[in-house]
């Protein structure tokens, strides 16, 4: 599967000569990284929830203004790592002009994972959530409801396929087929998002391999 030429990478779009494309690309990047950045600021830089949200807003505004993210070079690592290092620089500069308050929340203080791991996990959550929302908007039919009931089920025990068949009034084989088709659609939605958020085919393939253990 070749990297699609018709789908413009948002990272690539940050370099575009057209201001509209640049703006739209930054919106895509910001929406994917908003939550990861905000939570990273709370854990790594011990910011309160409100300050982290303000700093996140300021970081993306500053990035657009000074075109920081446009300077990303894929040979030096993933975009995610580059963005995090830009964020660290941004926070260090911001702290020079204000008191570095440290109101660390208990739930964040007790986390076992490193800020980098948290950043990665939140990026994944943001990616998967947006893929699920895409599916919900496009496929709000019976198949999506079965998918939601089974794969997006947060309770301790998932219903069996037979339970779902009885609940939705279809055969168990249909449940198997619906889930297979929705998982395929979900994976495609994630890969589409991932294409937006990677610069080139190599980075895209590396991310897919790390995410799903598959080759594309």
């Amino acid at each position, binding site marked *: 599967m070749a990297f699609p030429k018709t789908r413009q990478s948002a990272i690539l779009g940050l370099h575009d000569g057209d201001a509209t494309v640049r703006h739209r690309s930054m919106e895509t990047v910001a929406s994917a990284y908003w939550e990861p950045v905000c939570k990273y600021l709370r854990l790594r830089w011990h910011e309160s929830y409100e300050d982290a949200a303000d700093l996140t807003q300021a970081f993306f505004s500053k990035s657009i203004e000074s075109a920081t993210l446009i300077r990303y070079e894929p040979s030096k690592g993933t975009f995610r790592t580059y963005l995090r290092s830009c964020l660290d620089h941004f926070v260090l500069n911001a702290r020079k002009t204000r008191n570095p308050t440290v109101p660390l929340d208990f739930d964040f203080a007790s986390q076992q994972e490193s800020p980098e791991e948290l950043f990665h996990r939140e990026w994944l959550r943001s990616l998967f959530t947006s893929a699920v929302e895409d599916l919900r908007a496009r496929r709000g039919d019976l198949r999506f409801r079965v998918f939601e009931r089974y*794969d997006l089920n*947060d309770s301790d025990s998932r219903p069996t396929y037979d339970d779902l068949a009885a609940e939705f009034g279809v055969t168990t084989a249909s449940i198997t087929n619906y889930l297979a088709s929705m998982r395929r659609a*979900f994976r495609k939605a994630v890969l589409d998002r991932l294409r937006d958020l990677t610069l080139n085919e190599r980075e895209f393939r590396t991310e897919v391999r790390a*995410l799903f253990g*598959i080759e594309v």
Partner: protein
Amino acid sequence: MLSDKILRHLREVGELPDLSATRYQLIREIGRGGMGVVYLAHDTSLNRNVALKILDQASEACMLASLEHPGIVPVYETGILPDGRVYYAMKFVRGTRLDDYHASTPSLAEPLHTFLRICEPVAFAHSRGVIHGDLKPENIMIGAWGDVLILDWGIARRANVPAAFAGGTDGYMAPEQLAGVTGPQTDIYSLGKVLEHLLSPPDPKSIRAIAAKAAHPDPSMRYAGVMELTAEIVRFLDGQPVYAYQESWFERVSRWISRNKTLTVLVMTYVVARTLIFFFTHR
């Protein structure tokens, strides 16, 4: 926002192969090996369970399909998934992996006969120019009747074809495999390590020497082929001297006695009887 639990689940199902265009239904993952993941699946046409391996390329399936031997797991079918990955269905083997296998008797003969059965399919593959490349206890299945099947030909390749990555597993991989070299000698090294795994002390020094020679760091010091290795094992089982070990005269005598117990008892009885007769007649 999705919870951590849902994230984990979605990653798992995202990794699962899409079998909707095939006649197989996924049951569960049963293993991960060289270059691929193996699932237990149900063949809905033939109503039987199969082991389904998902690969990035078809070479393994083609190579494996060309090896018809009772000790090599047979390939039923190959195909391509919607995402471009290759799958092949093979016999679902029931049995005990060699790393979980324990001989039913304390005798050394049983594990050595098992080892000889392990060597047979490897020798056969070598005769067809195919090197397994990742022989280890986890890739060897012992059936209910002591039959042996060699699994996971995921990094098998044609002999002496250099590669950037020649695969293998630490502890069972020949040192030259790190440099991308594979050949019959690399499998012989792994067989030597498998033999070591089967032995439990105290073992005769000669059988340890056979394992050490097979797994010698220098390929030129190993057995020239699998048949030479099996011939050494057979010599050991027959109570004959082995090339890998230089015996002392005491060990030679002990081995001769152990091999000729009846004759030794007769001779000893005769000697004792003559000594007693001599002693009593000359009092």
